[in-house]
């Protein structure tokens, strides 16, 4: 009898299995190549049998990455831990035999600069997190590996269901000529909605109501500045938290301008584009409503509602003031209770922050919301030996969100989720948590009854909610419990209010979601400097007419071209 050589057998099995899994995917992926050559070779060489999304490599696969990291969010994380000690990496090695090696890690503030340098020198890791701009750059250079096969074969059902939650829109955005070049992490765009956070206990101390209009807000802010809202007998408080970037990701004044029907920016210094009366897109930054808002800010600055030296402050300084109880109002998104307001509550148990809709000229105003929210795309370097490892790592992170891992993966043990990459969360994650926790609360359940990949996040919030409502601080401090509850689950909290804004149509879309146009790339820095300089000076007391000069300069220095380019995009590429 002729013996079949073991490796041939394995090759055959692998090929059959990969065929099966390729066809097992949703119908629209049936067109994926049916004989994934690269992978079978890899697997057979390594002696593996079937492409299991969560399977273990027989030989250690080393994947290089780079990381820009923030401090761990959970205060219970062991102090002094470094990204390469992250317990998730240890588990990844154990479960899949993938070893992550960081080429470098820097605090996230330096990441952009460091990554620019790495790109300039062509020294890129295997798996890379990029934004849209760098995605286009790498794509143009032909640096990106084709992930079509790896995704079709290795993506776990959970990952696939995430990617299809928006009908495959985001995935399509990052494929080219049928090649999947990146896997986007995308989220509900309403996560970017700005609302107003305000100290309810201070309002109570002063006998004031939560403001609904700009005038009421001004009255409250003035009282917070002058009338000793914390009743400590010292004149040591002010009204509105603000740092030097007027349009940032928090502690800024995007929502303030929305209150005047002005939509200058979507944050991170990016201009917002709204639909004008003639159906064309217009830049929110140069509309007359912005001038009105600046005038008001100027007055607030004069009245001491805003810190006299806000232009010297970065976000950390603004956060210090929030935590130490120096300031009682801040414009921000749904996650504030989770950070930094939880620390404020822990420092001063009387601190009672509430979320309210943006006060407007007459009654609540509409918030600006982006059309899509995806500025994190995972790509694989063309030179990487195992592109499918990236997909498996995505599977891994989703998998460890399940119930059986939940008790083990605690922050105290060194699990720092926001350091692990690539990491894709359920795009409708927040709404799942909100619905499930409220369902369990309303039915007076003691346990939640789901066991899919959302288990961990839902259960964490539910536990914190129960502890908070029962005033139990044995697992976590009051601030942490409250933070999880009030950001995600409370009906009047961060997401609860945002959901209401979404459902009652109290928002305006930022219509532009394309990449920076050539003129934005070329002149954007210049225009941004002009804006920062003019706006800061106006707020600090320069003549309001400076705004008209700013608009003229903005148009002359390339703004006009940008308007044309954006409208060109809007007419040809936008989905209306």
């Amino acid at each position, binding site marked *: 009898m002729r013996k079949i050589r073991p490796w041939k057998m394995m090759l055959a099995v692998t090929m059959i299995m990969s065929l099966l899994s390729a066809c097992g995917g949703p119908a629209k992926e049936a067109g994926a190549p049916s004989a994934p050559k690269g992978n079978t070779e890899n697997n057979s060489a390594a002696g593996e049998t079937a492409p299991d999304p969560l399977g273990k490599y027989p030989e250690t696969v080393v994947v290089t990455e780079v990381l820009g990291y923030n401090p761990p969010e959970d205060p219970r994380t062991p102090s002094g831990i470094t990204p390469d000690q992250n317990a998730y990496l240890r588990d990844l090695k154990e479960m899949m035999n993938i070893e992550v090696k960081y080429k470098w890690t820097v605090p996230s503030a330096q990441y952009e600069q460091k990554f620019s340098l790495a790109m300039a020198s062509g020294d890129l890791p295997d798996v890379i997190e990029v934004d849209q701009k760098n995605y286009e750059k790498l794509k143009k250079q032909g640096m990106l590996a084709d992930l079509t096969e790896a995704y079709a074969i290795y993506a776990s059902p959970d990952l696939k269901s995430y990617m299809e939650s928006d009908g495959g829109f985001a995935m399509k955005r990052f494929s080219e000529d049928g090649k999947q070049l990146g896997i986007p992490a995308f989220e509900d765009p309403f996560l970017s909605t700005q609302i107003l956070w305000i100290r309810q206990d201070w309002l109570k101390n002063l006998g004031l109501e939560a403001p609904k209009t700009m005038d009421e807000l001004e009255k409250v802010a003035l009282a917070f500045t002058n009338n000793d809202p914390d009743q400590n007998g010292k004149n040591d408080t002010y009204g509105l938290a603000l740092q030097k970037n007027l349009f940032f990701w928090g502690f800024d004044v995007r929502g303030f301008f929305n209150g005047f029907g002005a939509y200058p920016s979507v944050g991170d210094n990016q201009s917002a584009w709204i639909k004008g009366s003639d159906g064309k897109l217009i830049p929110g930054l140069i509309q007359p409503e912005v001038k009105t808002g600046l005038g008001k800010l100027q007055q607030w600055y004069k009245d001491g509602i805003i810190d006299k*030296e806000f232009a010297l402050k970065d976000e950390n300084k603004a956060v210090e003031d929030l935590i130490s109880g120096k300031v009682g109002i801040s414009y921000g998104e749904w996650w504030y209770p989770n950070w930094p307001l939880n620390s404020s509550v822990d420092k001063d148990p009387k601190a009672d922050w509430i979320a309210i809709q943006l006060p407007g000229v007459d009654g609540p105003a509409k918030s600006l919301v982006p059309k899509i929210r995806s500025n994190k795309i995972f790509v694989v370097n063309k030179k990487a030996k195992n592109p499918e490892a990236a997909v498996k790592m995505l599977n891994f992170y989703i998998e460890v969100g399940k119930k059986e891992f939940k008790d083990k993966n605690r922050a105290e043990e060194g699990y720092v989720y926001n350091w692990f990459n690539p990491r894709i969360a359920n795009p409708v994650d927040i709404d799942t948590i909100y619905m499930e926790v409220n369902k369990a609360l309303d039915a007076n359940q003691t346990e939640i009854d789901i066991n899919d990949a959302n288990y961990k996040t839902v259960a964490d919030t539910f536990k914190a909610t129960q502890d908070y409502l029962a005033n139990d601080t044995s697992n976590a401090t009051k601030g942490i419990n409250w933070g999880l509850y009030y950001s995600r689950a409370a009906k009047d909290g961060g997401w609860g209010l945002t959901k209401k804004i979404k459902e009652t149509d109290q928002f305006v879309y930022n219509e532009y979601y394309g990449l920076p146009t050539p003129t934005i790339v070329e002149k954007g820095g210049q225009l941004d400097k002009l804006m920062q300089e003019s706006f*800061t000076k106006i707020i600090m007391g320069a003549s309001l007419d400076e705004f008209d000069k700013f608009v003229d300069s903005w148009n002359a220095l390339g703004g006009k071209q940008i308007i044309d380019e954006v409208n060109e995009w809007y007419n040809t590429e936008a989905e209306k």
Partner: protein
Amino acid sequence: MKSLKKEMPLHIMLIPGVIVTLIYAYGPMVGLVMAFQQFEPLSGFFKSDFVGWDNFNYVFHLPDFKQVLWNTLIIAISKMVLSLLVPLILALLLNELTKKWFAGFIQSAIFLPFFLSWTVLGGVIIELFSLSGPINGLIASMGFEPIMFMLDNSWFRGIIIGSDVWKGMGYNMIIMLAAITGINATLYEAAEVDGAGKWKQMLHITLPGISPIIILLAVLGLGGILNAGFEQILMMYNPTVYEGADIIDTFVYRLGMFSQQFGPAAAVGLFKSVISLFMVSVTYYAAYKFNNYRIF
């Protein structure tokens, strides 16, 4: 021939230095081609398209360029002049101190800030000059209105220049002190016999004695005519003082790092180097012509 043989060990000892210079100073000059390219990082020097003088045209026609160049010149020249004058005065004064231990202490105290980095000092200076800082505390205690030094264009440049001179003055001072010590003591004795007081001695012996060193420091300093202190300004500036403190380096930094326009950024770098080379050559020639002094 004989001398070459004798000097052989010295030449050999030079080799490592020369190699390091070649690798780290001359090697990177290849990168200057970026200034003439539409540089794409991943295509590298060899595959990026050449665009001639376009990058220079683009940069020189940016609306802020004149302002930025002007700021750079003012700040750099003030720093250069002051960081010769202040250490010179300090050195002359220190030289007159008779108690050696006291002179040594003062000397160390003045030298110390030189070793601190701007990353640390920048934060310290912002705090010092902030509204709640000690300097405004002093101003308030004397009954004046507090001043927002760091947010005011009329103050900010002065603070930049002043703090840089303060930080660096110990270095030049020590070089000058060393030169003063090198002056032949018999000259002073002779002057005293001739009835010259301290002031005359300083004018006619000390200053001429250390003039080569002053010229050397000036020539070396002039090469940096367009270096107004990148790190320092980056740590300390903010949008309200762009008008008076945005310099070529911070400008290029934003251009290169945040807008990723490597070509124009390299063009500005090359522009700076050419100006520096020109300035160094001119001073070198002038020092030779008027003072018959050669550095190299």
